[in-house]
């Protein structure tokens, strides 16, 4: 595609590991907003760069935040 193949994609670092957060908190919805698309879908791991453990927690946290109307299920 349009991307140059020779370049190695830079390894992204899990921001939750950097911050040494053990449990992703659904109450900090402002932070969770960074990990959803404009439409409110959860960003995939290959884009967010999160580790598997935190991505699982993040998904759950986003779903909880959605239930409590802290985040939208979809933006319209």
């Amino acid at each position: 595609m349009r991307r140059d193949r020779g370049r190695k994609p830079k390894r992204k670092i899990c921001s939750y590991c950097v911050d040494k957060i053990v449990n992703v908190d659904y109450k900090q919805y402002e932070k969770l907003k960074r990990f959803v698309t404009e439409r409110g879908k959860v960003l995939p791991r290959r884009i967010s760069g999160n580790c598997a453990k935190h991505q699982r927690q993040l998904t759950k946290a986003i779903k909880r935040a959605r239930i409590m109307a802290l985040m939208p299920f979809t933006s319209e």
Partner: protein
Amino acid sequence: MGLYEIMMIIRTDLEANEQEEAVSGLTAVIAKQGGTVSTVLDWRKRKLSYEINKLREGQYYLVYFSGDGAIIPELEHYFRVTDAVIRYMVVAIDEKDFEAAADKAAAEAAAVDTLQEEEAVTEETEVLATGTDERTDTEDEEAEDEEAETVAEGEDETEDASADAEQQEAEAEPEEEKPAE
């Protein structure tokens, strides 16, 4: 015995004492079932991300308690019976978060004491808050308009094609950040 966190949303179109009744009723249910309420946090009035029962904002409360898991069905019954509660969630949490919440409540209680002297100032901020609400409302409308346009453009395309476009968009974002790193 387990540690639990309750988040609940209470209607804002009620009298202040009715709202408090909903909270005190809850703590009464927990106490009656043999649980101990550790902290009650007022999580303030927030705009809901989407309408719930035609309401656009709600008063959030956080209640932390320890007790037997058998309390939870009783709580759920209480929430369903109480009309003031429009949404609730009970989550099991670990000790660290439980204590952190208690600390936060203590810190807030201390802050409230100093705040009460500045009543006039808070009233001013309330006026500001309503002002921002109006602004966000108009933004929402604008967003809706944009949405309608994109839908009209992409009518012929299949679902998958639009999803792909979205992914590319998302992929492009971190790309832009790279030079900064």
